[in-house]
């Protein structure tokens, strides 16, 4: 019929009427009970189709989003080869440096460009109280550390280590701001980093005497005469056996474990110290026998005296790791971090239980367990694709990686750190202050039923997310504190398979950036509205694009494609689908 647009205007009218509150509410069909959303598949190795969809799924979950060249690289490899790369050992990063000296304040003991991780805080510069010095200098160092961490995410190699580092931070959470010594926090982070794909049991043993944890959970004030149960409680409740249905440790177990842990202190005797460490003070240790509940098989940890008292900690860790709950609790956390938050009986039976058995059988080596999970039929089940809401770190670092944002290099380390710190700040604006989760329990997104990941999204954080992507896509880019960061969407677009074809440009970029497919109606709509400015003829876009490619310096040719792509990507990155991995 001539002149009538494709839109079904009648339904549109009805729809808008409803929106305006004029129409009576119609009963709608509920989807509940129609389909089973939970994969029934287990841990058998995935042998199905190996295409772009599966590669993207694996990379999205293992990395902070995916770069175009990473997709190309991994697409040429089979699943086994991909996993070999993702799980390969990588060297430790070089430590964070003093990039924060400015005219007004400077770190008196760290030359610009040098690392501060072992540097003293004293003596006092004139006019400074110790408190001022700590808060001022340490805040510089903490920002340096957080920026450095954001830098690790953004500049990560295609390797799962950095994703595991964040995992451990969510699973064994501490707060830098409570500890107020960035050297402790750095040491703690490096402990997590070195165990990223290491041994869970050893990590817990190390963390228990880690200076940052001793300060944060008051282990350093836990003495025979004045026990402090703080760490003993969180060790069991949060870090190991957890609160799952099979966990039945008692309050008495908390008190008893605290007695085992007496005597461990950090060496923080002076802010002048240059070597952050911890040690055991036998005179503060409770030397009595420690008897645990039936949950721990009525284990008795024999009291030891002198330096031998330190060995009780090993007994405690052995006891905790002898329960099946410790392995189960960790496997549930890994599942929620890498697969989806919903663990029902089926998932518990088909995935968590066998995975926990494997973890125990491998004596708590994590690498093989994560690899098994990420190469399983269960992981590659379509039901588990695209259903994790990106954490702020995944959104921010991911956006930088996807669009290959140029960040100043080591030679301009001041701007480099400023850029990284801005990225960490943006994560904080979205409610994820890396290094400072809300509590020792970490972020609710990883443990709080029933919403889990949905905790990342509220009206504040969602508009912040969209505001950030819009600003990074704007002509001016993101400018703050002398930093300029822009998403190079033109280059990104040029990296797609056939950007002169508007339909392919849209479908390629949507597929790459969003794990939930757009259907043809949606794809055509977006193509027409954004790339064709409402027209129907593809050649309008093709000509504009080819004109731009032939002469990228021509401002008019540039402006035609630039303005359309800019608005398209602002739109796409504000879709709910973009928030998912």
């Amino acid at each position, binding site marked *: 019929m001539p002149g009538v647009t494709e839109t079904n205007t009648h339904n549109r009218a009805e729809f808008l009427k409803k929106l305006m509150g004029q129409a009576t509410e119609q009963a709608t069909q509920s989807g509940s009970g129609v389909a089973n959303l939970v994969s029934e598949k287990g841990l058998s190795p995935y042998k199905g189709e190996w295409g772009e969809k599966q590669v993207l799924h694996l990379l999205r979950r293992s990395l902070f989003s995916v770069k175009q060249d990473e997709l190309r690289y991994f697409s040429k490899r089979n699943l086994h080869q991909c996993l070999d790369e993702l799980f390969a050992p990588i060297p430790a990063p070089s430590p964070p440096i003093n990039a924060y000296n400015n005219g007004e304040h400077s770190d008196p003991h760290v030359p610009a460009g040098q690392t501060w991780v072992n540097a003293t805080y004293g003596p006092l510069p004139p006019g400074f109280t110790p408190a001022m010095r700590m808060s001022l200098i340490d805040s510089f160092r903490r920002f340096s550390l957080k920026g450095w961490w954001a830098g690790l995410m953004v500049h990560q190699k295609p390797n799962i280590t950095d994703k595991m580092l964040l995992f451990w931070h969510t699973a064994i959470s501490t707060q830098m701001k409570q500890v107020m010594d960035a050297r402790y926090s750095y040491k703690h982070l490096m402990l997590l980093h070195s165990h990223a794909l290491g041994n869970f049991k050893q990590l817990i043993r190390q963390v228990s005497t880690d200076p940052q944890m001793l300060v944060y959970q008051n282990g350093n004030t836990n003495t025979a005469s004045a026990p402090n149960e703080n760490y003993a409680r969180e060790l069991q409740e949060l870090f190991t056996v957890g609160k799952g249905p099979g966990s039945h440790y008692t309050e008495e177990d908390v008190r008893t474990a605290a007695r085992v842990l007496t005597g461990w202190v950090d060496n923080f005797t002076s802010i002048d110290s240059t070597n952050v460490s911890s040690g055991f003070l036998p005179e503060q240790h409770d030397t009595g026998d420690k008897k645990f509940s039936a949950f721990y098989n009525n284990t008795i940890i024999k009291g030891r005296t002198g330096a031998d008292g330190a060995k009780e900690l090993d007994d405690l860790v052995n006891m905790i790791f002898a329960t099946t709950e410790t392995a189960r609790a960790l496997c549930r956390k890994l599942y929620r971090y890498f697969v989806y938050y919903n663990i029902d009986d089926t998932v518990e039976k088909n995935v968590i239980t066998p995975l926990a058995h494997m973890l125990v059988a491998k004596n708590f080596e994590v690498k093989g367990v994560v690899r098994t999970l990420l190469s399983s039929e269960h992981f590659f089940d379509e039901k588990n694709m695209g259903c994790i809401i990106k954490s702020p770190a995944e959104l921010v670092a991911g956006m930088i990686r996807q669009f290959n944002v140029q960040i100043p290099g080591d030679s301009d380390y001041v701007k480099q750190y400023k850029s990284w710190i801005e990225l960490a700040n943006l994560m904080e604006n979205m409610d994820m202050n890396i290094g400072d989760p809300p509590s020792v329990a970490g972020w609710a997104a990883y443990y709080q039923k029933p919403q889990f990941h949905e905790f990342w999204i509220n009206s504040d954080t969602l508009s912040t997310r969209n505001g950030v992507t819009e600003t990074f896509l704007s002509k001016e880019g993101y400018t703050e504190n002398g930093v300029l960061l822009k998403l190079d969407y033109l280059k990104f677009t040029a990296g797609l398979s056939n950007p002169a074809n508007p339909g392919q440009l849209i479908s390629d970029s949507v597929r790459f950036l969003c794990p939930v497919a757009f259907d043809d109606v949606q794809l055509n709509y977006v193509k027409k509205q954004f790339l064709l400015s409402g027209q129907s003829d593809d050649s309008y876009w093709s000509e504009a694009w080819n004109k731009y490619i032939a002469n990228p310096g021509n401002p008019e040719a540039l402006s035609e494609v630039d303005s359309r792509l800019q608005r398209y990507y602002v739109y796409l990155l504000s879709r709910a*689908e973009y*928030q998912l991995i």
Partner: protein
Amino acid sequence: MKRRTFVKNTLPLVALPGLVKGVPLGALTWPTSEGVPNTDGKILVMIELNGGNDGLNTIIPIDQYKNLRDVRGNILIPENRILPLSGTNIVGLHPSLKPLQALYDRKMMTVVQGVGYPNFNYSHFRASDILQTSSGADNSNVSTGFLGRYLNKLNPQYPKGYPNNQSPDPLAITVGPVPISTMLQGNTMSMGLSISSSSSFYNLVSGVSADAPLTNAGKEVNFMRRISSLTTQYEGAIKQAGQKQQNLSGKYPEKNEVAENLKIIAQLIGGGLQTSVYVTTQFNYDHHNAQVDTADPTKGKHAGLLSHLAEAIDAFLDDLQLMGMQDRVLCMVYSEFGRRIKSNASYGTDHGSAQPFMFFGTQLKSGFIGHNPVIHDNITVADNLEMQNDYRSVYTTILKKWFNASDDNISASVLATFPQLDLFK
């Protein structure tokens, strides 16, 4: 309430740009517009004819008919079918514009002839950018829109602190599909909101009330879309205005998208929103072929669009009149360009240059500004209509006379100085 129901009944506004720092949208509250109705503020409603409207077959220069027949005989409206206008025998309307004929005779319509600019550009993209940014043909470096700059100048802090008691309502609203018109692009973000959204556009384009797929991923998509709707700070004000005012005119046609959009705009105006700019779009004017039916040039794609447009405008003005809002609203109809003088063999026309802008409202002087386009002898496929009025003169006139804008603001918005037109009473 079931989530699905809830989503369907939430106003689909998501195009409100979020903010970066310091302005958590959730912390803002919107005061109701109750008690502070904007009773005298002027309102501009812009209708974009997207694709390039054939001005010569819309506002037909009867005195050029002979030469027109030579170069576009296959699409030309038969002379006896052209709708005459009172007080003139040299210009008439396309037969599909019957309702506009009546509006013209009631002195509610003005046509500005030959609107264009020097060094005309024939690309849809570039031409619409030039028009919307008010930057002229030779400056491709402007990405803000002329109304965006105008509104930004009046509201330099936007969106920080918005909405507030002085400005409880959206500054501008686009009704229709995303993206929000470049016209409304301010210095850092769009000054407009869009009624149309991710959660609704499925429903809009397909007529199916489809949610995201019934998967875990779909569940999270729906969850975020719901939050997204709730996030829009102006939702309450808009909902309230929509509920307060029913459409009063019985003239709105069925199955007419531009009418549906204008219907919503009328409702929001009548409901007391202080919003001063509305933009909507009628698509599909790019008729390189089959612009007219081969058997009858008064029928075809172009005729269909024009009749939709005319019926919609007629109903809209009628509605405003019944609401008592007619004196506050100026309606402007424009396209990115006109079409070529010479038609092609496929009964269509290619991209052209100057075009007539149409205005509707009670405050117009009514009639014609400028003369009929002149169709010379021996027109070739390369020939185009001459420009008579720079589009920036139109913008200047609207800002100065309709919005009473300061000269400062006008030069910041229009980006240059242009003479005013004798548009208003």
